[in-house]
């Protein structure tokens, strides 16, 4: 039975000095990561990198000072989501003059490879040693992106570190819908059938089997909403037109309209096969989010605030999130009684939750600076390059 929540209270802020001290390691990390841009004689890249490093360090400082995670992470995540298409589209247009990828570019192996097809490539690769993607295994100077080996490697390395938190600290697609979900003050659609949660698993299963059967990256060819803001199959016939139509409809529906109506990350929650795949790594991560039953009054503010519907009454009663939790921190920030806490597996719930939060944030934010930071810097550099 839901009861009226207690008056929302903000956690006691840390002192500025202590917050600065906690931010220092991240400032050093950011300086190391972005110092590479100063090795290149590109002034706009240097300015963009400096601004990005300052932005990331400032957000981390605010996380330390306010003890809030989600609201500051969201600034980074939305910035990454909005700036990724800017940098990426500029790069592919500069390389080939169009967002549409023609068949000769696929034959040349110059299709940029993102992380989403990774689970779709596993079975064909395991059975025939064949990668069903028209890209380069190693980086090619004439192609956007770093090649399939580099992307697979960064995915594996970061998954070891952040697990499913990839979806809220690394994924450069999720920020657009998170930004859209942040626009309305209240959701217009409040009741969502919980069975939609199984959508990503259904899409993942279907795409894995179809990719094996048809020996093509089926999701990329037919269903990826983000083709609408990255690159698409150059429409050379009716089939190509249909493919591009599907991309646009899915993008408009799942990434723009539904997040505006529901205040949820609907593409991630109901559709993304990579998100489902990444959920498996929630079982291997040492970090999770728990609910301290001794403090919880079931006000369900955590459930309402979760952007991916990863909490329900049963999971709250059990004191844990569902497998799809991406550790964005929305529920932790929303809880008025500090009952929803960061947690390290094996430790007791609610014993030093801030310590668990800090260790997790250092790891996750380090990855965010490294990967997302480069995406933001790339987008900013493009804007500087084009406008200034």
């Amino acid at each position, binding site marked *: 039975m839901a009861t009226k929540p207690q008056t929302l209270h903000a956690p006691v802020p840390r002192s500025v000095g202590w917050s600065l001290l906690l931010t220092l390691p991240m400032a050093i*990390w950011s300086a190391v*990561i972005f110092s590479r841009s100063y090795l290149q004689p590109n002034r706009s890249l240097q300015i963009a990198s400096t601004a990005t490093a300052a932005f990331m360090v400032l957000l981390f400082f605010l996380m330390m000072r306010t003890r809030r995670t989600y609201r500051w992470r969201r600034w980074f995540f939305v910035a990454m989501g909005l700036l990724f298409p800017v940098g990426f589209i500029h790069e592919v247009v500069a390389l080939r003059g169009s967002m549409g990828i*023609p*068949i*000769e570019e*696929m*034959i*040349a*192996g110059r299709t940029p490879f993102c992380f989403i097809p990774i689970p779709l490539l596993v079975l*064909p*690769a395991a059975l*025939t*040693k*064949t*990668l*069903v*993607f*028209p*890209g*380069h*295994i*190693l980086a090619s100077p004439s192609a956007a992106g770093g090649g*399939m*080996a*580099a992307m*697979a*490697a*960064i995915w*594996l*390395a*970061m998954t*070891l*570190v952040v697990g499913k938190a990839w979806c809220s600290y690394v994924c450069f697609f999720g920020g657009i819908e998170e930004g859209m979900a942040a626009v309305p003050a209240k959701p217009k659609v409040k009741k969502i059938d919980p069975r939609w949660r199984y959508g990503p698993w259904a899409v993942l299963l279907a795409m894995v089997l179809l990719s*094996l*059967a*048809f*020996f*093509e990256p089926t999701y990329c060819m037919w269903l990826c909403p983000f083709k609408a803001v990255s690159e698409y199959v150059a429409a*050379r*016939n009716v089939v190509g037109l249909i493919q591009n139509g599907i991309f646009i409809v899915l993008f408009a529906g799942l990434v723009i309209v539904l997040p505006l109506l529901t205040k949820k990350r609907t593409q991630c929650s109901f559709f993304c096969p990579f998100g489902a795949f990444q959920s498996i790594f929630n079982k291997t*991560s*040492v*970090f999770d989010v728990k609910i301290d039953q001794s403090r919880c009054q079931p006000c369900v503010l955590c459930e309402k605030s979760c952007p991916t519907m990863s909490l329900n009454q049963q999971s709250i009663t059990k004191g844990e999130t569902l497998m799809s939790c991406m550790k964005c921190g929305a529920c932790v920030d929303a809880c008025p009684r500090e009952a929803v806490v960061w947690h*390290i*597996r*094996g*430790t*007791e719930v609610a014993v030093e939750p801030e310590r*668990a939060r800090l*260790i*997790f944030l*250092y*790891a996750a934010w*380090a*990855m965010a600076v*490294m990967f997302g930071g480069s995406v933001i810097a790339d987008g900013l550099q493009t804007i500087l390059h084009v406008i200034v």
Partner: protein
Amino acid sequence: MKSLKAKLGYTGAGLTLFAAVLVPFVLWGVFSKGFASLGLHVDEVYSGGPTVRTIQGTGYTIDVHREVIPHFFQRENPFVELAWKPVGVLPPRISERVDIDGNGTPDVLVSFDVPKDPKAMLHVDVESLNPRYESMRNVGKEKFSRLIVRVDDAILVRIPVAEP
């Protein structure tokens, strides 16, 4: 037991943090090399398969690639790729009998114009001289197994192989 579990948890968290620091300097490179050394290759429907023979033309060459056979329900025909290169020395029109299987008898007559503009649309006619290979009339880039395209410094023609 609780204490041991907690110690293991904190050890795992510490190792995760250590791994985070190693990602850009060690892990990324190690995993990239590991992936590259798995011996995986890009599907030949895209890459065209390895070159098995090179035919000398007048100033240019024709690479004959190994026949590509699609997997499972792949929506392509088996095909053979021929690559004329370098494009810069090709005559304005190619009309050439090509011995694909290397038995000394021409298998196809391939004809296409070589426009100076590298972005110009290409079209090819292929007359089959061996029933194993399919004829094509005025084909551009219909599908991976039936096309003519310019890729870097080569003009590729993919000729469908008749299925048995």
